[in-house]
């Protein structure tokens, strides 16, 4: 296997770097997936399916805290990107790990939420609202976790002054993860408050 990438990787007839194009394309497809899921949720809700009054039982405080955590982590990844742009790899490395830390806090809060709800009997199969709650937040959490793993890998490259352009790309992805949460939070936590 040859050890260099093809010339095609480095060309850009449009002026947009290929990595960035790829990430936007990926996000577009993810938007359709989450959009579809959220739309199904709304269809059930507005057709008065049973169980949707349970939205009052989700902990708005936990949800709000998580929103704050994710937004902050979006800030730190932007700072990481800015640092990598000016070549400050150690600062970039640190900010990436703050972002990962934010993701970790998010996951811990979610774990706490899930366990308290399950102990109260609100499992995945309790009613359609809870089925959606776990499916949507679960899918989202998987994306958070995936993002954390990729960020970790990128951070080690960055520390070696390698592939710095990828900080921006994972940043774009992380903003998307954040935005999905911004949509999930009101429909799962604020509605029926």
């Amino acid at each position, binding site marked *: 296997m040859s050890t260099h990438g*093809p010339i095609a990787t480095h060309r850009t007839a449009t002026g947009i770097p290929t990595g960035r194009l790829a990430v936007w394309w990926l996000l577009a497809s993810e938007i359709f997936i989450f959009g579809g899921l959220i739309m199904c949720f709304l269809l059930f809700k507005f057709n008065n399916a049973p169980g949707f009054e349970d939205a009052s039982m989700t902990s708005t405080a936990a949800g709000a805290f998580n929103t704050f955590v994710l937004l902050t982590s979006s800030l730190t990844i932007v700072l990481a990107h800015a640092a990598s742009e000016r070549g400050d790899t150690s600062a970039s490395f640190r900010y990436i790990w703050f972002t990962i830390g934010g993701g970790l806090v998010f996951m811990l809060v979610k774990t706490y939420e899930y366990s308290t709800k399950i102990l109260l009997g609100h499992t995945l199969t309790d009613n359609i609202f809870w089925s959606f709650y776990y*499916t949507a937040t679960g899918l989202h959490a998987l994306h958070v976790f995936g993002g954390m793993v990729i960020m970790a890998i990128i951070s080690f490259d960055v520390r070696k002054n390698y592939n710095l352009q990828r900080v921006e790309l994972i940043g774009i992805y992380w903003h998307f993860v954040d935005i999905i949460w911004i949509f999930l939070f009101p429909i799962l936590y604020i509605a029926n408050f």
Partner: protein
Amino acid sequence: MVQQVETISHETEAHGTHHEMSFWEKYILSVDHKIIGLQYLFTGLFMAAIGGYFAYAFRMQLAFPGAEVPLFGYVDPAKFNMLVTNHGTIMIFWVAMPVLIAAFGNWMIPLMIGCDDMVFPRLNRLSYQIFLASALVLILSFFVEGGGFGGAWTSYPPLSAAAEYNLTNWGASLWLLAVALEIVAFLLGGINFITTTMNARAPGMGMMDIPIVIWMIDIAVILFMASVGPLIAGAVMLFFDQRLGTSFFLPSGGGDPLLWEHLFWFFGHPEVYVVLLPTMGIVAEIITVFSRKKLFGYRTILYTAFGTGGLSFIVWAHHQFVAGIDPRMANVFVVTTILISIPIAEMLFSYIATLYGGSIEFTTPMLWALSFLVSFLIGGVTGIYLGASALDVYFHDSYFVIAHFHYTFFPITIIGMFAAMTFWFPKMFGRMMDETLNKIHFWGTFIPFNGLFLPLFLVGMAGQHRRISDFTQYPDLASPDLQGIRIFATVSLLIMLLFQFVFIYNFFNSMFKGKKALMNPWRATTLEWTIPSPPPHGNFAEMPTVYRGPYEYSVPGHDEDYWPQHIPPKSNV
């Protein structure tokens, strides 16, 4: 052109020497788009054999109900359902998409736009590996307890959502998992296609100089990406219903079966254009080359392709006219469905106009391309019957639907596949196929194809419904005339299947013993014909520059009847 990587260091090392690659590295783990294209092609052809075998088995049951099918065994009602379900699923997801989009897209995109590979070769390899896994999962589903899934390729709940209804507990979930993996594979593959086409074009190749097949494949990839998202959400929900006891689609738990139908068909309708557009592109390439004529109305064809793609998102409920949707909604979908025939008609008219004033040579690729136009015309006009909601009240879930979609899908998948293979075989393998055998195969496929599906319109008119294993049980459908039609159709299929061995022989024999092919045996203008057959690793020794569009044939004042894209303009033209 901006080379973004100037200021930021990255992973590429200096162009070192290539070490000798083992068989494993060169063919199995390759990141070369040409090898990956072949992997998709051969996997797709293998799956086509399975899909065809299933069709053989169920058509034998239909013609001779209750008889033991040679080389298969008895087809009881459960097996019958499994056969028709997986025939449809395989043909769409594991034949049409991998062959038309992944195999020929992988091969032709870098070659036609003048670059050395896809932009993300390792992602390309990963896409194939996930695709292969999906095929293996599907095949596995046939061997688990309970057998393969039998709820039709549309997989409507509650049947598909609960093992107590479908009686194929693991078969249903493995089927769903296989489809999900295939979708992921193509979403990943699409990343490569779009970014490569947009960014890696040779200098001088503007958007309107791209061969139309590349545009068509890219539009198909966009349509796929935009339509499949909600279905993925639905598939997760269905999987949870099957395995975890949720009730997204089960009315007993507050769920709604109709929701799945909407999610499925919101994808399902654009999907047919996802597979149609690449074949339209392939046919365009062939008819321009073999009529020595510029494509008529390149821009028009491009805009109608976009128009068709956009409209395809608002027609989906014509699959649900009698499904229990609000009848008033049906009227909207009648309008949009009938209207979508218009851009397609425009495209077909443009293709026919391309033939006007041409110098037509009836090579095998051209025969396939022309037969596509004839067959797809039948498929298209019979769609009008079904888009008429009131008539669909009679034809829903009848053989008229089957005949219609085979007159669209078969030309798209099978004719398109043979057109592309016979056309690009010299480039891919460096040898020519035997033209006589090719022509025998063509007629031996095209005529029986019509013998198989044309009569099915008639049984559809008789009210014969779908997914039934034995019509002799229904007195109104058991008449000897109708059974005679069924037998005639099955015999046509048998003849068609036998002729495929001609192609298999020709394909493999020519690959090793065919006459060596020139670089440009068809005297075509696009960039893939400017490099050796087969192309070396890296494709182009020097990056080409493009000076004109891809269809400059029979240009007045020119000696040659074709003017390749990469030839610099002469001052004395």
